[in-house]
């Protein structure tokens, strides 16, 4: 079904198309990752700090904002890439028929889909980098190791972009994206060691969290920002990589089934 010979560097031209469109409103695109962490830090820092004494993570006592800040980067990577390959790709595919037009050129479907996923990872990386800088200004990121966020965001972006593309491949209509968001994205957003350590959960919930890609991504962003980690970072890295590859394949298969008739 999926032929590797159909994939060449030509996909870069589709990636470039998305970059050109992104640059048209780059100020808006930059504003969100610039302000979002500031809002969270203010809200949680000022509002929550009084309620929570502090958090123990990897044997270290941390202020709540220090614990939560790296998770914001992980969440932002997830949202940026997942929403790009779900809503945005669906609009390009279904409403704008952009892929149909591309399919009359020497581009293969595989290249178009790969480009969309790589683009979503690129967008997530840009957002993560801006957020890291902002959080760095608040003194919540240790440099230079914090810059490891850049390659990590790209990998995380690939993972969530690919799973988003898989949902785009199987969703009957754009409204149905509510389902994966409610059943997959939102639980991850809440239970991936983002706002409280997974170690505080009952055993079964801890095991379940280990299956969440966001859990591993947040573990790694925290490792990049603070040098602290609960699990083995190599395991998290391997999990993310395997998850990305698996859904890259499934994304290509489902989109081919959807579009080539």
């Amino acid at each position, binding site marked *: 079904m999926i032929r590797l010979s159909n994939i060449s560097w030509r996909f870069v*031209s589709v990636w470039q198309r998305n970059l*050109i*469109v992104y640059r048209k409103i780059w100020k808006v695109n930059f504003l969100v990752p610039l302000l979002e962490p500031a809002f969270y830090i203010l809200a949680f820092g000022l509002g929550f700090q009084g309620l929570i004494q502090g958090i123990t993570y990897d044997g270290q006592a941390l202020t709540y904002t220090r614990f939560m800040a790296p998770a914001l980067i992980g969440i932002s990577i997830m949202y940026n890439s997942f929403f790009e390959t779900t809503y945005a790709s669906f609009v390009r595919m279904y409403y*704008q*028929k*952009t892929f*149909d*037009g591309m399919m*009359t050129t020497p581009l293969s479907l595989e290249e178009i889909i790969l480009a969309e996923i790589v683009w979503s990872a690129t967008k997530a990386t840009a957002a993560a980098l801006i957020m890291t800088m902002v959080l760095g200004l608040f003194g919540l990121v240790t440099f230079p190791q914090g810059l490891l966020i850049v390659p990590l965001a790209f990998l995380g972006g690939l993972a969530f972009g690919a799973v988003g593309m898989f949902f785009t491949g199987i969703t009957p209509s754009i409204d149905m994206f509510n389902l994966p968001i409610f059943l997959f994205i939102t639980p991850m957003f809440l239970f991936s060691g983002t706002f409280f350590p997974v170690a505080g959960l009952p055993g079964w919930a801890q095991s379940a969290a280990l299956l969440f890609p966001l859990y591993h991504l947040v573990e790694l962003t925290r490792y990049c920002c603070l040098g602290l980690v609960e699990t083995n970072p190599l395991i998290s890295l391997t999990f993310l990589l395997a998850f990305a590859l698996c859904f890259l394949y499934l994304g290509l298969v489902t989109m081919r089934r959807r579009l080539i008739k």
Partner: protein
Amino acid sequence: MGHEQPAKTGEPILRVDNLGKQYNGLTAVDSISFAVQPGECFGLLGPNGAGKTSVIRMIYGFAPPNSGSLQVFGLDVATGWRQIRSRIGVCQQDNTLDPDLSVFQNLLIFAGYFRISSRQATERAEELLHFFALEKKREAKVGELSGGLARRLTLARALINDPELIVLDEPTTGLDPQSRHLLWDRLHALRARGKTFILTTHYMEEAAQLCDRLVIMDHGRILVEGTPAGLIEAHVGSSIIEISGANRELKEFLGKQNVEFDEMAERLVIYSNGDSGIEQVIRARFHSRQCTFRSATLEDVFLRLTGRELRE
């Protein structure tokens, strides 16, 4: 069946042999064969659902054929699709212009998909904007274009790679007469440059104007193949009389004279085939009602072969 043109020598640009396509068990294209010669304009005609667009989609490798073979430039579409697509230009039925980009960017970025260098792409894009009288709209957003402008841009975009074969799927559907004539004019200019065309259309006037040869399809099969004039001659003759109101006396007369006619609810279409004797009698004896004497057209052929009842 139909009027065969004298076979031209040389490799055809497009060769379709026993091509078949099914969707969910329904046959869209049922074992059709035809060939398009270099420099020719070839038409695919047929009612909605006849299988025209399915054929077009198979030509550019969007839909894989289920049976038979399809070769473009002597390359098989299953294996040579990338090479084929780099040498053809496709103007799809739907508007697939990129609404996130300006008119000029639509051309430039599309050129990028063909790996055309940006210098060459800019040059080509300028030329095409001029050729399709789109210069003033250069920076306009695609969403702001009228139907006619959008179609001109779609055609301009299809030409960005200087294709040898141009595939047009209903190029003038929904356009006003001015836009349609401008588009026909440009297509004639391209033909003069030696381009080969394959087009689908619902407008018989368009097919008669543009096509050297055409096929009429229905239910996935080719009914006839020939030149527009040849098909008219063979299937409906040279002239037509239309009379409103079905009259038994007239029908008996036509039956006796062995003149063919089609009967509709309110009208009789008589294939008088230039027989002035019949025309005179009808003028004299049956002219009390509304009556039109006219030349036969491709539309008469089309309706006669595919039937007059509604399809959808």
